[in-house]
């Protein structure tokens, strides 16, 4: 009486194990594929751009002559826009998060606002550009100035900041605020002196990450009609400006006319990525250094 064929069983088992091994390798390759493209992209940008990256390029004015062109104007423009985005998003974003987490009662209204925020996060950035064009540039008649660009980008990244600030506030353990209430503190005193300080590192991390999203964003700026012409450096909120991503955009487009423009675009990309890398490092540093575990 033979119950099973041992060699047949072994063969089947072997092929199943082999399949597992082959697919494990394929899964690994897929994961590495994205990283491979990332490496190619970085190397490509470095090869194209590093030769053009020097002090004159960083501090120079815009020029049609590739040898003399610089990105000081775009750098200043990006900094000015950041100076609008940081306070606007922090005040509105953290205020909204505090309201939702600590004041709003659970119910229809709160879930309406939260649904609305998550829908806003999914709206394509170019639609925000049209909002900015219609409301800030035309209706309020700012023109395509720093203030209009900054406000548009602020609205764009606000949903991201609100969600991360909400998470930060939620992570503050309840016993801290209970102790504060127990000492007779009022609600606002508790929020200002206990909850906000405890949540501050996470809030800062989230706000830096959303800021870095705003810096790299191009589509809304193209819609606002941000130029890349030989305009004077921006000196205030109501000056016209250009920004790093816009500079990359125009140089890339025109690289079919003047080949060196591709190099200038690559050099600008290096500057932009370096800036983003710096911001992210600061965010990670803050998170590791100041975040307390309860």
């Amino acid at each position, binding site marked *: 009486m033979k119950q099973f064929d041992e060699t047949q069983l072994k063969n089947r088992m072997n092929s*199943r194990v082999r*399949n*597992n091994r082959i*697919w*494990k390798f*394929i*899964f*690994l390759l*897929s994961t590495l*594929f*994205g*990283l491979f*493209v*990332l490496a190619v*992209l970085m190397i*490509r*940008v470095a090869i194209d751009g590093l030769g053009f990256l020097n002090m004159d390029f960083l501090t120079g004015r815009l020029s049609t002559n590739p040898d003399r062109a610089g990105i000081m104007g775009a750098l200043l423009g990006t900094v000015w826009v950041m100076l609008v985005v940081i306070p606007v998003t922090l005040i*509105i974003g953290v*205020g*909204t998060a*505090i*309201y939702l987490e600590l*004041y*709003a009662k659970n119910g229809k209204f709160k879930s309406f*606002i939260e649904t*609305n925020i*998550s*829908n806003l996060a*999914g*709206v*394509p*950035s*170019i*639609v925000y*550009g*049209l*909002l900015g*064009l219609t*409301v800030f540039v*035309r209706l309020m008649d700012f023109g395509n100035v720093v203030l209009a660009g900054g406000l548009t980008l602020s609205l764009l990244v*606000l949903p991201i900041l609100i969600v991360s600030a909400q998470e930060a506030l939620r992570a503050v353990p309840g016993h801290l605020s209970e102790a504060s209430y127990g000492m007779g503190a*009022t*609600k606002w*005193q508790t929020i200002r002196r206990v909850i906000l300080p405890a949540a501050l590192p996470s809030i800062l991390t989230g706000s830096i990450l959303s800021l*870095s999203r705003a810096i*790299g*964003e*191009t*589509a809304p700026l193209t*819609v606002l009609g941000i130029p890349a012409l030989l305009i004077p450096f921006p000196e205030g909120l109501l000056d016209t400006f250009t920004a790093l*991503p816009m500079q*990359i*955009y125009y140089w*890339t*487009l025109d*690289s079919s006319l003047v080949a060196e423009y*591709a190099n200038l*675009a690559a050099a600008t990309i290096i500057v932009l*990525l370096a800036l*983003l890398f710096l911001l992210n490092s600061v965010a990670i540093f803050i998170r590791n250094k100041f975040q307390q575990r309860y």
Partner: protein
Amino acid sequence: MQRSSEVKHEAIRISEIIAQNKQKKNVSNLFEKVIPTILFLLASITILTTLGILYTLLSQAIQFFRTVPIWEFFTGTVLKPLSQNSEFGILPLINGTLISTIIAMLVAGPIGLMSAIYLSEYASEKVRRVLKPLLEILAGIPTIVYGFFAFTFVTPLIRSIFPEVGATNILSPGLVMGVMIIPMIASLSEDAMTSVPNAMREGSLAMGATKLETTIKVVIPAAFSGIIASFVLGISRAIGETMIVTIASGSSKNFTFDITESMQTMTAYIVEVAGGEAAAGTTIYYSLYAVAITLFVFTLVMNLLARYISRKFREEY
């Protein structure tokens, strides 16, 4: 005599303190009442943003549909906004958008899912801690950089193998967009798969299934709603993506299915027309908003669908 005056003195001081405290309390009471109102006003800015978007798009699109009938717009296969006898049919733009999205998802779908499987089922904790942040870098790169990469590297690469491909074409930005979306699908699908309880895996493994069989027959079915939701969000992202297609796909408004040719997406049309200084009040200017509202509805439906799927079909363990 002296004692009673002392008591009196003390009483006055205490009543002063009480009065002072009351005043302080009034101030802080005022704070307690005003702050929630201020915060509420700040929170309502997000609602104002939504209303602002809807109002802008609708009011201007209505102007457009006064000159171009809505039916003609949504069924027209010819888009010639700048010619003398201008025609506004959105189908070439929808076609371009869908084709670039399909190409992107053909890259991002399988590769993103397989990355998620590797990270969630196969990779050791050590490997995961290295690979995940690296993938997140890929997600953090601005899209303009991808656009540069598609235009100056991927397109010439494709053209060196297939010379008949145009200098601007939909294939190259579609592929690069796919790479851009990989991390999004990978991390959302991975979240869905890691939330499948280990007991289910162990049950399958104990029955003699290999890891591959466990993944395909147990983990993926259990995480299916989350995986589909991540795909839908990826599609929404691809539809709304602007800079890669604007730079690398050119502005041809041909209604074609040939992926080696230049095509324009809805987003790229908006950039072209808005950046081209179309005078406010002209039909071509208003067409911007008609295209934008179509784009808005497309992505909104996708986002709502993703949320519906992950809520409705989630298996609770």
